[in-house]
């Protein structure tokens, strides 16, 4: 089954926009994706018709929202093939999910002299939370090396694993390089030494089929807004056995069982990690977004995005002075590059004036850019609604922009 991209494009109102009187070409999907009507309609409808706080009201609206939220939880469960719905915790996004695990896990399991392993290609959101707990508990952050093509150095990965390592955190797909990591093998290797893993799926779930049981991930995290859902909602998947072992991170409403001033007992999973009023309408809308992706077919989406990436890669390679950053054999939807003698910032600003939205800079992976010894890259990242015609336009404008800047 292949995608009907023309039809898909009609589902995304923002794509009809012009910027600077030019048709919008939105190639900044790794930063956030646009939203289809069905998702926008959920927000509109729920605030107009159904809004009421969940899990506490006995009235009609509250029951309706509670049911819808729990249905959304099941949608997420099935989308990543989790064993139980209560293994799905709603958070604000990937960053909060990583912080939740880092803080909670460390308070229970990290002691002085322990080690936490990350890779060189991690987003700051999968570095800094671990750094913070390392500082707090006197643990050491170890970094797994990569090869210049942007693949993980598996020898370095294996070498990093030892009895002192308490958790390994790595990305499924690199937001800068586009590399798809062999997360299943990495997880197996960590597990062979009884080390749990956290996988950052922020750039993976929207592009490729994810099965957390097949991967055998202990924790898998992602954001809603990068998979066509609203901002401010995300997911922490954790194996039941792990989530049971972790203490609550934040305290407040909904996460409690009994509260007295002497002692509070906590609610069961997943609610013990959902303190305060959660973004339930965001969660319901995320459920809608995941259904939208499933209805289009994640495999068909992947095929379309792979075609776009291959086409763009082929075409950009013919541009004089271009160096692609990230040339792993397995890549997903991200094309980062630098141009000899031209600053990425200049390219980004000028492309913007032609209606093209790309990201420039270090994409929150400063250590990775330092390693490549580049100040930043231009990054074009694709989603299901992008087309080859847009890539053609992008290439034309790149030529024009480079002529101006050289």
């Amino acid at each position: 089954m292949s995608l009907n991209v023309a039809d898909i494009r009609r589902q995304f109102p923002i794509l009809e926009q012009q910027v600077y009187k030019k048709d919008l070409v939105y190639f900044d999907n790794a930063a956030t994706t646009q939203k289809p009507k069905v998702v926008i309609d959920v927000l509109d409808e729920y605030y107009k018709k159904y809004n009421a706080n969940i899990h506490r009201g006995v009235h009609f609206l509250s029951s309706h929202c509670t049911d819808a939220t729990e249905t959304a939880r099941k949608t997420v469960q099935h989308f990543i093939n989790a064993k139980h719905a209560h293994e799905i915790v709603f958070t604000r996004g990937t960053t909060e999910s990583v912080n939740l695990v880092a803080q909670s896990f460390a308070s229970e399991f990290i002691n002085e002299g322990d080690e936490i392993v990350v890779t060189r290609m991690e987003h700051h959101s999968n570095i800094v939370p671990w750094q913070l707990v390392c500082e707090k508990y006197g643990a050491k952050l170890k970094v797994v090396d990569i090869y210049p093509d942007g693949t993980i150095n598996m020898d370095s990965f294996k070498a990093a694993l030892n009895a002192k390592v308490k958790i390994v955190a790595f990305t499924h797909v690199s937001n800068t390089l586009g590399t798809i990591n062999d997360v299943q093998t990495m997880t197996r290797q960590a597990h062979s030494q009884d080390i749990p893993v956290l996988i950052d799926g922020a750039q993976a779930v929207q592009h490729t089929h994810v099965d957390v049981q097949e991967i055998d991930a202990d924790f898998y995290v992602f954001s809603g807004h990068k998979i066509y859902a609203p901002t401010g909602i995300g997911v922490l998947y954790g194996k039941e056995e792990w989530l049971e072992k972790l203490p609550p991170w934040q305290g407040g409403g909904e996460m409690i069982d009994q509260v007295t001033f002497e002692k509070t007992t906590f609610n069961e999973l997943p609610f013990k990690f959902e303190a305060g009023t959660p973004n339930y309408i965001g969660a319901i809308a995320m459920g809608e977004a995941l259904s939208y992706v499933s209805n289009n077919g994640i495999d068909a989406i992947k095929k379309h995005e792979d075609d776009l990436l291959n086409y763009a890669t082929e075409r950009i390679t013919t541009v004089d002075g271009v160096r692609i950053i990230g040339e792993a054999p397995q890549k997903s939807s991200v094309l980062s590059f630098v141009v000899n003698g031209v600053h990425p910032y200049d390219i980004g600003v000028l492309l913007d004036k032609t209606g093209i939205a790309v990201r420039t800079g270090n994409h929150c992976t400063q250590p990775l850019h330092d390693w490549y010894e580049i100040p930043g890259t231009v990054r074009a990242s694709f989603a299901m609604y992008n087309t080859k015609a847009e890539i053609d336009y992008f290439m034309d404008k790149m030529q024009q922009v480079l002529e101006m800047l050289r």
Partner: protein
Amino acid sequence: MSTIDEKQQEIVDEFSVFDDWMDKYAYLIEQGKELTGLKDEHRTDNNVISGCQSKVWLHAEYNDGKIVFTADSDAVLTKGLVAMVIKVFSNEKPDAIINAEPWFIKEIGLEENLSPTRSNGLNAMLKQIKFYAMAFKAKHG
């Protein structure tokens, strides 16, 4: 009209002939390419005004009652903006600099570059220029 305002008006007049964004930016790039004058010995980390994406170096010297600025950037568009800012503020007395507003940037339609989140260092550079003016005023009266 102060000489700073006159210089700003000149820039505004030069830009008024362009109605297309690309022409505007082509002109800005030209300005950037013409920006020279920062000596290598002043291209130091001390003189860096850090934007998130593009770097700006700014050096100031006090000469006969006036401040002379030299600057550079690693991005050409930023360099173009920097060139215009330098043109406006350099070779002026500290008091004139302290009291001046860089209104020309908005006038030529490039005010988006002044946003603190724009991260090209321009905003920080303007602040630094005022700091230099205040410092030289304090030092030399």
